[in-house]
């Protein structure tokens, strides 16, 4: 049997970074083939080479045994390769059918009909006339998949398709993919989630540092084996769960409403929660359900007068970011570059931005020696891999910069810490480190609110969970007394919310 797609010694370099080095890959017709690797292992680059977005520096790509030289995605589509991007390649101000008409030929009315037919056939229901910005993330992914399927691909590439989906939608996606496999479509499934790969895929090629480190049948290996292949050493041990008594309330939201006049944003309604000293409370849910708005309201970036937000014993509705920080509040935003740190500035100057109160400024002038010492201490204590305090923040890898920002905030010894997506795009080693430090802070008596999409992470470190869905907050779920399934029900809005029950 000729392989559908095979890559021989394919390499790609971006500046100083060797993203792919001598990659060999064989995809058989009708197989579901996993590409497994950590963030930065070169998975996305490899897919861009196969889909013709980028061209390899060296090596050969064979399609059904014939060498091909893809210079654009249009050529890849003509061969029968379709791709569903991780950060979707959809246009928010266009409708579903307009987005699809961009690359699928045909009259709009025909396309709309075919979108509905495919939707019924593969469980990919979506309204062809809806504007994309009004769709949920899961629906947007369906649009991307439909757009590929309308071109009758023989190979479908999905880049981290489950990272944006609630557990129930993941099961639905897998059904769709199996139905496609039954039709003879081969699937390249890119992921770093081991259990999913074991469940779905028949072959897995493992990447680490831009190189192939193994090709296995994932069904015959334990998750631990796969993880070892993926990160090059044994998985870090899970954190020990400790029970401790909580202290006073440090953050209290009571009936917080927020009307968003941004049509692409989310309004919040009747959000109530408490965070006590000595506990970690998690906010689960798919991004785009009000997380950014909630974080902005708690951090003070958006000020809404009233006493719906009480922080460390004071109503802070009308109080801005700086005063909230002075009270002992600290915040790690989800966007590391641009909000958490200024990419063009040195680490020392970035430290100054929030730690200026720690004796780094005198009479309005920066005291360079303490600034450097503070930054150096942060780098050493939080294991940030960088040449030193003068390094530009933008030059650090995602994981290192996140460790630096977390360290900067933790060194302020906040009484209340809000962390948004603490380990997005961070490799497993650094992620474990960050989680352990959060737990250590909790043990030392800090009140911590974590907003995260990673359920596994929330279950590891949180004492209690809430789920945010379309601007509504679920009731409080103690982590030891709930399940992934229950949280998942709230994530898709199927749980009993207090509004519905009332």
């Amino acid at each position, binding site marked *: 049997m000729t392989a559908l797609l095979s890559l021989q010694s394919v390499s790609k370099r971006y500046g100083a970074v060797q993203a792919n080095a001598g990659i060999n890959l064989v995809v058989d017709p009708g197989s579901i083939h996993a590409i497994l690797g950590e963030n930065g292992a070169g998975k996305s680059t490899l897919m861009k080479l196969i889909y013709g977005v980028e061209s390899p520096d060296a090596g050969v790509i064979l399609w059904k045994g014939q060498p091909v030289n893809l210079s654009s995605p249009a050529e890849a589509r003509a061969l029968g390769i379709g791709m569903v991007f991780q950060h979707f390649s959809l246009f928010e101000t266009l409708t579903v059918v307009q987005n699809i008409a*961009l690359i699928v030929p045909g009259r709009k009315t025909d396309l709309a009909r075919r979108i509905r037919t495919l939707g019924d056939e593969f469980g990919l229901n979506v309204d062809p006339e809806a504007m994309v910005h009004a769709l949920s993330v899961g629906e947007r992914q369906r649009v991307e998949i439909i757009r590929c399927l309308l071109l009758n691909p023989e190979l479908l590439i999905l880049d981290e398709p489950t990272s944006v989906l609630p557990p129930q939608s993941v099961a639905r996606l897998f059904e769709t993919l199996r139905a496609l496999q039954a039709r003879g479509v081969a699937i390249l499934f890119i992921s770093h989630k081991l259990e999913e790969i074991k469940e779905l895929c028949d072959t897995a090629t493992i990447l680490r540092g831009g190189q192939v480190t193994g090709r296995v049948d994932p069904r015959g290996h334990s998750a631990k084996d796969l993880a070892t292949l993926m990160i090059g050493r044994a998985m870090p041990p899970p954190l020990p769960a400790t029970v401790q008594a909580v202290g006073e309330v440090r953050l209290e939201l009571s009936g917080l409403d927020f009307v968003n006049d941004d049509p692409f944003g989310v309004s919040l309604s009747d959000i109530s929660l408490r965070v006590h000293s000595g506990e970690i409370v998690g906010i689960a849910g798919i991004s785009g359900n009000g997380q950014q708005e909630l974080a902005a309201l708690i951090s003070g970036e958006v000020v809404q007068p009233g006493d719906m937000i009480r922080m460390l014993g004071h109503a802070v509705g009308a109080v801005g970011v700086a005063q909230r920080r002075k009270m002992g509040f600290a915040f790690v935003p989800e966007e590391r570059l641009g909000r958490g740190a200024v990419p063009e500035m040195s680490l020392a100057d970035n430290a100054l931005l929030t730690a200026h109160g720690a004796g780094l400024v005198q009479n309005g002038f920066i005291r360079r020696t303490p600034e450097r010492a503070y930054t150096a201490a942060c780098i050493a204590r939080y294991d940030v891999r960088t040449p030193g305090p003068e390094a530009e923040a933008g030059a650090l890898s995602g994981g290192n910069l996140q460790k630096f920002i977390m360290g900067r905030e933790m060194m302020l010894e906040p009484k209340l810490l809000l962390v948004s997506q603490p380990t997005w795009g961070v490799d497993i080693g650094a992620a474990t480190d960050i989680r352990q430090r959060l737990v250590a802070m909790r043990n030392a008596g800090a009140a911590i609110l974590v907003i995260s999409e990673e359920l596994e992470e929330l279950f590891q470190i949180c004492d209690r969970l809430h789920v945010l869905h379309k601007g509504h907050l679920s009731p409080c779920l103690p982590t030891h007394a709930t399940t992934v399934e229950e949280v998942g029900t709230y994530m898709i809005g199927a749980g009993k919310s207090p509004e519905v029950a009332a």
Partner: protein
Amino acid sequence: MNAVDFILAGMLAAATPMLLAALGEMVVERSGVLNLGLEGMMALGAALGFITTYTYQSHALGFLAAGLGGAALSLVFALIVLGFVANQVAAGLAIGILGTGLSALFGKSFESLTISGLPKMALPLLSDLPVVAALFVQDVVVWLTIALALSIWAVMNHSKLGLIIRAVGENPHAARAIGFRVLPIRCAAIAFGGALAGIAGAYASTVYTPLWADGMIAGRGWIALALVVFGTWQTGRVVFGAFLFGALSLGELTTQAAGVNIPSQLLACVPYIVTILMLAVISSNRRRMRLNTIASLGQPFEK
């Protein structure tokens, strides 16, 4: 001729230079590029259009030369902002100043010369209507401009080409990922906008006031830029804004002619003030602005 007839007869022609330039700029901005050099491209078009029409006694050749000149200048802009990925605001301002300077240089020996304009065409039936008849007696360029506005509306909203331009303007990275070539598309949009700006300038110098005087574009390029934003990048609103401005500027003339005792400088400000007010009112609807604003406008794109 009473004041109403005067305004109806002249408002479309008064609006046409701004409208042509604004329609072109709208397409450019829809593709994600901000070209602030409109005033200069119009000035260059005005000079080249006048010189060619004067020399060859042909308005058609004049418009052709003006369109080519505007497009050529806009391609210099394209080279700077797309090729060298320079700041679009700075590059646009520089190109605008360059165009104004070139128009003065080329037009120097034609100062104060005049040519004949274009004859008016009456639309059958419509020009027999009571009260509004004067509105339907216009020169051919006015009618072509309105037809062009309709075509641009149809292309932007109902054709694949329009979809591609809008996609490139909203998210150039996604557009590239699905296989559209962002830079050639933006370059073509810039050249189209430049050509229309040149033609707009030529209309001002060879038809609306058929004479050459340095500085005769007199800020119309800036008004056109404002109209694009005021119209929230929607063809219909841009057309409405241009006609409103045309009517107001003629209304100001009739008020002066009627001898109303208001300083003429203040009256001359009225169209601008009203335009700014309308702009502020429209922009105050955050929802509408957010839905229509071009997400990548003015941002450099590097693959």
